[in-house]
């Protein structure tokens, strides 16, 4: 079974709305709001961590479901 | 709204411009015939490099960004010896790095202009804030005794004027001239008219005649102490070195040569103080208090002095456009006439030391000092004027 995960907005205030996370997410989870990122479709998240690894601003954290 | 609008033609006159001080160095330099810029970016001087990068090629001039400030200084001296009117620009940290090669430039007598747009130091300091903290460094930054000329403008217009003068003095006296801006002047925009080259006096180094080639002494002691200087590649085949040397350019290892050379290097400046020291003042002759200022601080100073006059205080204003050589005899003279001299500076008290030395106890000298990146507003000076006038 593929690992699943859940992306969190750990530090929403630090988001600079650069959109990088949107770009690197393989599925549709994230959307750019007017001010900052939004987790539009949390259920889509496959926990790949691309977003956490790529975000330059330490905004996102992905929790693996089997870690919970 | 009165109808003072310029005619269509005037509007497009590209000699009237809104320029930053940094940009004015570029425009002034081009008027003066600057044909070479080498530099390394640094706040708040980068705009000078950028301006020259943009504008030199169309005039056949050259711009090069070097790997650091040491290299920039070396490059400018090399270009100067090859015949260019050369300039570099930096701020405190880079100015520190240029010091060794600046000394070499003084020794080989290479005309060039070194701009320092001062920010708060030491070290990285406050990179975007104004300062006049490198005034003493401009005099003493390189090792050993040496002559120096340093000019410091207080307006964008004066930046154009003094940039031209820097080139002129560099060429005339065969010496690197330091142009000390501060971040305020460097980054402020003012409306100015850039003169055409034909409108201003332009000086170019004395060059020897081709027929002097066979009997040429590159560092000859002449009446004016300034030997003529050929460009590289003209067949003079002469030698220059940072070692003490005689008129041939070569070191002989004799101590009298060292003294002779140093005396000549200093005489170039010391015997031409009249020409080099530029002072602007607003004095009525009855002054009891004088505010002696330079650079951007002079703007607050004049404002304060005028307000003081309106209050009936016998205050006068002096602005040194030439910071080095210091206007010693001028200050000695005024110190005999007035009771107090106030020296506002954007540092912890630097040029005030020279003022005190020159005043030799004849006038009470006090400083107003800001060294936190803010500037001195007129009312602080006015307050001090009022205080000391009591």
């Amino acid at each position, binding site marked *: 079974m593929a690992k699943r995960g859940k992306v969190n907005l750990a530090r929403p205030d630090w988001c600079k709305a650069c959109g990088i996370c949107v770009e690197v997410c393989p599925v549709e989870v994230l959307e750019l709001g007017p001010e900052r990122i939004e987790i539009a479709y949390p259920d889509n998240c496959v926990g790949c961590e691309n977003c956490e690894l790529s975000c330059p601003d330490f905004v996102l954290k992905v929790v693996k479901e089997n870690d919970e | *709204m009165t*109808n*003072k*609008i*310029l005619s269509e033609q*005037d*509007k497009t006159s590209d000699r*009237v*411009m*809104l320029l930053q001080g940094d940009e004015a160095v570029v425009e002034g330099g081009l008027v003066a015939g600057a044909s070479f810029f080498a530099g390394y970016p640094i*706040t*708040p001087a980068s705009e000078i490099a950028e301006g020259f990068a943009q504008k030199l090629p169309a005039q056949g001039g050259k711009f090069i960004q070097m790997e650091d400030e040491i290299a920039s200084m070396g490059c400018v001296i090399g270009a100067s010896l090859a015949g260019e009117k050369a300039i570099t620009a930096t701020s405190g940290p880079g100015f520190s790095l240029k010091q060794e090669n600046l000394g070499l430039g003084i020794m080989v007598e290479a005309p060039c202009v070194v701009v320092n747009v001062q920010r708060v130091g030491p070290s990285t300091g406050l*990179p*975007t*804030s104004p300062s006049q903290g490198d005034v003493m460094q401009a005099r003493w930054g390189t090792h050993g005794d040496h002559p120096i000329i340093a000019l410091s403008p207080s307006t964008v217009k004066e930046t154009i004027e003094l940039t031209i003068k820097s080139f002129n003095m560099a060429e005339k006296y065969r010496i690197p001239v330091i142009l000390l801006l501060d*971040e*305020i002047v460097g*980054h*402020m*925009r*003012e*409306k100015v008219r850039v003169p055409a080259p034909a409108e201003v006096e332009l000086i170019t180094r004395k060059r020897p005649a081709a027929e002097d080639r066979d009997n040429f002494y590159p560092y000859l002691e002449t009446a004016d102490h300034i030997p003529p200087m050929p460009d590289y590649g003209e067949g003079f085949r002469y030698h220059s070195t940072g070692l003490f040397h005689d008129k041939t350019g070569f070191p002989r290892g004799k101590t009298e040569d060292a003294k002779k050379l140093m005396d000549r290097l200093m005489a170039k400046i010391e015997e031409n103080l009249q020409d080099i020291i530029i002072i602007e003042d607003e004095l009525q002759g009855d002054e009891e208090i004088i505010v002696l200022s330079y650079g*951007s601080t002079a*703007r*607050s100073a*004049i*404002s304060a002095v005028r307000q003081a006059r309106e209050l009936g205080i016998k205050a006068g204003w002096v602005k040194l456009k030439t910071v080095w050589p210091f206007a010693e005899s001028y200050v000695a003279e005024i110190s005999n006439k007035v009771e107090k001299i106030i020296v506002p500076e954007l540092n912890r008290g630097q040029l005030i030391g020279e003022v005190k030395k020159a005043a030799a106890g004849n006038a009470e000298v006090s400083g107003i000092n800001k060294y936190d990146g803010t*500037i001195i*507003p*007129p009312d602080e000076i006015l307050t001090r004027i009022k205080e000391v006038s009591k």
Partner: protein
Amino acid sequence: MRKEIRLSGAGGQGMILAGIILAEASLFDPELYVVQTQSYGPESRGGASRAEVIFSNEPIDYPKVVKADILVCLTEESLEKYGEEVTDEGVVIADDSFGGGYYHPERANFYSLPIITTAREEIGLEVTANMVALGVVDSFLPEIDSSCLERAIERRVPQGTEEKNLAAFQAGQELLANVIE
């Protein structure tokens, strides 16, 4: 005449360009002197941003705003920071996106205007808010002919954006009229 204008906002809102354009307008009036300064610094990356312009018909000595005759604030922070440094008769122009926090009931000339909204909605480009603001300033600046400002805009904005910017400027000019009506 010495007229001090301070334009303030966040980095990226183009307040410095607005200041430069305002100053550049003086080029077309032979009797005007001008000094324009700005705050540089890491501030310019995201933080507060500020431009100052002083007009005079004499040479200008002290180059900084002491008390503004006109203050423009596109952010609440800038209003808080500079709101007090205005002459008694001075004009304060604030974007209407913030109402609370700082507010001067005593200040006669306080205008809360939809500057950013106008830029976004009328012009369709939020970044033109600086030009809208300039348009508002123009209404309070009889010393400068509007045509000079328009000229300056044409010269200083990025090539190809002249029209949008001029439109924003004009929208700004009208803003006040609308409010006063």
